[in-house]
């Protein structure tokens, strides 16, 4: 296994090494896709979220955050943002995306695909902590580092978001949050 951290690959990419960026994509695309499948209604959309997420990573290349050398938490945060408004993200990169072959059509989305419905009751900031904590299993410290906020803030958002989900609007997700 390649020992280079994302952070060091990133440095190479910043120096113009496209293949380094490709390696970061190889490393994390599956995880980002899986995450996206929970947040958007179709496979097609999820693939688009993945593409836009990595394009966003490059666009925001001087502001990405690494948690213990890994870009994954930041990518997941960005994917959650992108999933919130796929069409807007896709518009920004329309010229690039239209050159791609059509994504695989209409594979039914996974059973977790409707998590986005439950998450709609949450603000984006609460949604970020819930997806990272409950869906992805990151620790509060890792979430704090990925979002660039205090750990106490993560804790309070998490508690607020769980309360809101507990209001009966999202029983399926609630089961998962209480585990």
């Amino acid at each position, binding site marked *: 296994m390649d020992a280079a951290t994302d952070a060091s690959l990133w440095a190479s*990419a910043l120096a*113009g*090494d*496209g*293949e*380094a*960026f*490709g390696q970061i*994509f*190889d490393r994390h*695309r*599956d995880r980002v*896709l899986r995450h996206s499948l929970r947040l958007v209604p179709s496979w097609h959309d999820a*693939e688009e979220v*993945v*593409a836009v997420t*990595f*394009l966003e990573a*490059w*666009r*925001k290349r*001087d*502001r990405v955050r690494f948690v213990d050398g890994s870009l994954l938490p930041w990518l997941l945060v960005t994917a959650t*943002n992108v999933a919130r408004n796929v069409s*807007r993200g896709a*518009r*920004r990169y329309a010229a*690039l995306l239209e*050159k*791609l*072959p*059509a*994504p*695989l059509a209409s594979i039914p989305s996974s059973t977790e695909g409707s998590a986005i419905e439950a998450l709609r009751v949450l*603000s984006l*900031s609460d949604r970020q902590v819930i997806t990272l904590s409950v869906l992805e299993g990151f620790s509060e410290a890792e979430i704090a580092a990925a*979002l*660039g*906020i*205090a750990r106490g*803030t993560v804790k309070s958002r998490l508690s607020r978001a769980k309360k809101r989900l507990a209001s009966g609007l999202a029983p399926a997700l609630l089961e998962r949050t209480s585990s």
Partner: protein
Amino acid sequence: MSNDYNAAVRRMLVDNVSVRRQVPRRALVVGALIFAISGAATGGAVAAIAPGSERPVEPYVIGTPANDFTTTPLDYFGETVVRTGTGDETFDLGERPNGATLLAVEFQCTSPGEFSWKPADFETEGHQTYTCTEERIAAGPAADAARITYELGAGSHSFVVEAGPNATWTLSTTWARPRPIEWKTNDSGQTYGMRKSDDTVPDLLAQVGTNEVGNSVEGYLRSAELGRPGVLKLYASDGVTVVGNFRND
């Protein structure tokens, strides 16, 4: 992810990185130190030319001139950071400086569209929305920038701007804190100014009332009369000249 699509995305990303565009995508301009903590009473200007931007950013004024009648005069900390952006951006504000409690924000659109912005740790109540028209842009930033302050806790913060894909904007941020109120003294030795945070009042308390034709007028109430209900006289800072009335309900 289907293999063809996957491979095509990868190729696109690799190409995108390898063929780096020379045009800076983002301009971050750090203005001069505009206010010391004990700095000027009124706003200052930062002239900023954003590298790579098509038009120079005009001088920005952070904060409105403070006087006895504006609600919260501010002291500013450190640098005003002027950012230009296109579409959505989330960026770090960094660590709140010691002593600062507020973030003073000035937003200006530079192309028409719908814009909204807020500190990332604010919920919807901090969300400012702004519809920008050609007329608004033509009026210039000094005429029509949106200004707001946010109270932020210690630690690091980030800020979110949402805009249409090609909508351009400029945002200035400066850490600040409310300036301690100071009173002045008139020729008769009476103090005048605003109520202090410990609730003490000067001899003449700044208040906005109405003049005889019903227009709003700035003046001072005699603190000795503050407890009296009904219509109070509003004086100039000399404590003698009557400039209007204030209804004390």
